[in-house]
């Protein structure tokens, strides 16, 4: 499925991927298309090995797709990777700094490559994150290392932030500090964030739009509120011979005697009446959490693959 989050003009887009495929020995990213509007925070959710990191590396120009086109900040990333990276901040949990050197050394090194480096903001971040600039990287905890990395990224004031699982392994306080700083970043309407995680709570907290990806395929993409409004969990009682009616987006999740639990991806006001007329008695219609929506989307996508 190829879904476009929005249909703005090209100069309103921070990034767009069109029919992008990448084949590795044991993994395939297949015909991926989506775009990100400037000034938004987009979440990329997928299980481990879904292709989130590969997608982000393709957006950074670090990995070249076998087919398809990638535009970042109005430029094709394949031909203008080095100049585009002046305006992109990329974090990956696989990324490491030089262990024997200090945070200050890294700040000076990164500053030498970025004319946009904001020293005052860097000092502010040092303070807010509770980091000591003379401290060597090898002496930092995981949380401090992540914060040091984010400092090096944020202080160059990038227009587009690509963050691959930045809160992985962080304690709740460090996670709060990082998310708070990212929320400050998006107060600037010109800055865009693509944020990947398998932690749906973080995504739900900060993202405007959400894309689900699984086994190298895009399975759903929409804005956060639409996801939360349209997806419902329906509990109903129905005779054992009852067949799930053919309603768009309706899926039977589990059965316990006469109790059925269904998920619905496209809720309409008429649906309760349609279900009642099929012989079922509705017990409850509840909103679904983003995690439940994600799991249901993944399972639906996998069923679709199998059929």
């Amino acid at each position: 499925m190829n879904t476009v989050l929005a249909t703005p003009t090209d100069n309103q887009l921070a990034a767009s991927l069109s029919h992008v495929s990448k084949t590795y020995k044991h993994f395939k990213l297949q015909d991926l298309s989506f775009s990100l509007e400037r000034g938004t925070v987009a979440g990329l959710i997928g299980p481990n090995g879904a292709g989130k990191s590969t997608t982000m590396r393709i957006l950074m120009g670090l990995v070249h797709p076998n087919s398809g086109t990638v535009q970042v900040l109005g430029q094709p990333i394949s031909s203008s990777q080095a100049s585009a990276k002046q305006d992109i901040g990329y974090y990956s949990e696989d990324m490491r700094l030089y262990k024997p050197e200090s945070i200050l050394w890294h700040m000076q090194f990164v500053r030498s490559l970025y004319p946009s480096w904001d020293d005052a903001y860097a000092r502010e971040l040092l303070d807010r994150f509770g980091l000591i600039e003379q401290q060597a990287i090898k002496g930092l905890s995981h949380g401090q290392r992540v914060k040091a990395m984010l400092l090096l990224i944020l202080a160059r004031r990038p227009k587009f932030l690509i963050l691959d699982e930045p809160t992985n392994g962080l304690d709740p306080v460090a996670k709060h500090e990082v998310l708070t700083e990212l929320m400050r970043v998006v107060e600037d309407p010109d800055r865009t964030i693509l944020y990947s995680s398998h932690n749906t709570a973080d995504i739900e907290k900060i993202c405007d739009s959400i894309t689900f990806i699984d086994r190298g395929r895009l399975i759903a993409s929409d804005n956060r509120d639409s996801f939360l409004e349209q997806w419902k969990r329906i509990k109903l009682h129905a005779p054992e011979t009852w067949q799930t009616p053919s309603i768009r987006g309706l899926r039977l999740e589990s059965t316990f005697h006469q109790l059925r639990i269904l998920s619905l991806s496209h809720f309409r006001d008429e649906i309760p009446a349609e279900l009642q007329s099929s012989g079922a008695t509705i017990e409850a219609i509840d909103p679904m959490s983003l995690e439940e929506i994600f799991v249901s989307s993944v399972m639906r996508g996998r069923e679709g693959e199998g059929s």
Partner: protein
Amino acid sequence: MNLKAIRILFLKDLFLSRRFLFAYFLAGMAASAIACYPDATVSFIGFILILTVAIAAGIHFIGNLLLSETIDQTRLFIMSLPVSLLDYSIGKISVVLTTYLIPWSAMLACTVICTSLLPWAKQGSMVTLPAIFLFLFSSFMLQLVTAVITESVGWTICVMVGGNVGLNIFLMKLFAIPEIAEISKGDILRWPPVIHQIHGVELLVIAIALGLTVMVQTRKRDLT
């Protein structure tokens, strides 16, 4: 190509390897000085130390500056900065060559100067020096091209072992050439045609390895 980025990457790597570079430089100078000692046994130990320093410096700088970036995952950090693969590759190959060539040239220069100046040194022995040093450099270049192509510590060590075995065979064959053996024992330095041919082959190996290294590294499409 961004020369500023290349310079910054080059200086960064030179800074990161400064301690080892200094240590290899000092060790190389000491080994060369020992090699010029009048006693044959001590001189031989010095010669072995020269070979050891050259081999160790080569594998160390390739491992420390090239292979470790992938193992330590610092390469992803560097490639997230505004540098192209061409900038990265040129910076990396230049710094690995520079760090190796500093102790290498210091040892060659020190040995040549000592042999020329010290009254007990046989001037003819200098006939084999460029050939031996060029062999060490070509062996290093083969390790470098292997490291760039395979990005594997294992394969690079295999080529290093091959180079060491090759060095012993090379020395044996070099001193078995009657003309070379005769000149190296005498006080008059001459350059017979055979030594030029050996230099030519060694320089060709170096040029091919360098060309391959640059070609392979700059043709890589995926940066991580």
